[in-house]
């Protein structure tokens, strides 16, 4: 079965030399694609989760009575929203990376920075998407009518109880469509981690076509389809979640 598959792509490469799907018939190249794909998925999942957590905490902190906390959150948003994510990646890795402590590597003599390039990519991309998420959740929180919160207050709910039982569930429903967009963008932005040599899918694909120029068209085609599939899965999941949280008579007017 696998042989037939490999033979087919080998013959494609022979017939059309510009369409060498080398990773489909050379197992060692296939492994590079798979390892790149795996890093991309890891990076995406971790960044999506962290950026949502940052968004929730940030939106909550924006409502803080302390002016200093509000300023800090506002400063964070302005910085990360108004600068290109590629520059943020480079800045984190090359600038901040110099000042982090180092540890001795597994070989016993090399010194490695405590935060690897993958670590910096996670930090930088999560904060980048998190800045947008703060604004997304804030708009959700602002859409919750004060009167509804007053009703909770009148029933004797504490501030925290009101937040977890009323404010947040309602704000989340309002925020989901915008959150969906931003998370999709985040998954696509993970490709920029190539700039700090994170071995994600784009990095591996570029390496392959640098080694085998004939694989360039094929690699780009596969990249497009892989991202369509990845983003498709995320969007599908988000839409399902939105549908599950849908409440008759709230939000969408039926």
């Amino acid at each position, binding site marked *: 079965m696998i042989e037939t598959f490999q033979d087919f792509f080998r013959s494609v490469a022979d017939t059309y030399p510009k369409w060498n799907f080398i990773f489909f018939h050379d197992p060692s190249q296939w492994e590079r694609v798979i390892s790149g794909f795996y890093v991309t998925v890891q990076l995406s999942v971790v960044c999506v989760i962290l950026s949502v957590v940052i968004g929730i905490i940030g939106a909550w902190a924006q409502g803080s009575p302390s002016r200093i906390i509000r300023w800090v959150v506002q400063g964070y948003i302005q910085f990360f929203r108004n600068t290109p994510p590629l520059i943020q990646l480079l800045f984190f890795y090359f600038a901040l990376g110099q000042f982090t402590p180092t540890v001795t590597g597994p070989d016993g003599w090399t010194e490695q920075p405590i935060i690897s390039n993958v670590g910096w990519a996670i930090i930088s991309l999560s904060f980048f998407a998190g800045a947008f998420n703060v604004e997304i959740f804030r708009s959700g929180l602002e859409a919750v*009518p004060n009167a509804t919160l007053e009703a909770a207050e009148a029933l004797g709910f504490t501030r925290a109880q009101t937040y977890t039982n009323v404010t947040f569930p309602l704000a989340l429903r309002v925020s989901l469509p915008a959150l969906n967009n931003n998370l999709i963008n985040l998954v696509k932005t993970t490709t920029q981690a190539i700039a700090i040599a994170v071995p994600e899918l784009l990095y591996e694909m570029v390496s392959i076509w640098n080694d085998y120029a004939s694989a360039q068209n094929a690699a780009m085609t596969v990249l497009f389809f892989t991202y369509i599939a990845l983003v498709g899965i995320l969007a599908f999941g988000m839409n399902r979640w939105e549908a599950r949280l849908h409440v008759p008579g709230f939000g969408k007017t039926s």
Partner: protein
Amino acid sequence: MDIMKGEVICIIGPSGSGKSTLIRCINALNDVQQGTITLEGYDVHDPKLDKLELRRKVGMVFQQYNLFPHKTALENVMMAPLKVLKEPKAEVEVRARALIKKVRLEGKENAYPGELSGGQQQRVAIARSLAMNPNVMLFDEVTAALDPETVKEVLLTIKELATDGMTCILVTHEMGFAREVADHIYFTDKGVIVEHGAPDTFFDNASDPRTKKFLGQIL
């Protein structure tokens, strides 16, 4: 202004005269600028008073119902006893179902607020407040946003509550209802109580010119 247990009080007056502010002060949703409110020995605006403790004893129903839109009617009624009083779920559910029956919404337990009419939502809101077993109920123009047919169902529910001996303080524009149910009526204008009295005396023999003018316009 003294209110006895089991009494039904109606507060009427032109808009902006301070009726809502007055009752919102009773459960500390608004702050008092002057004077004091004492509820069963509690000084409501003592800064040391636990406001949450107070609010558990005072039920409040709003003009716009303010139900939790993401919860069903039953969940709306159960939420406060479950989360605030931390009572066991099974017990709360029994009580909540009984309350929903009491406000004549049997069969609507699993409907979301968005699926209910205004009058039905308002009755869920009343049941939600009652679930906390309050000692007094505040009604802030609860029928003002309803259409005439549904006003009746809500007023009937409130009337039953009053008959059961619940202390009720209502801000209302329903003069006929006020006359029928109230033990005492207060008329406010520009932030002060202008006149008060038993319903019959109040409606038939109002003495203050402002009261007379208001009643003349409305009746």
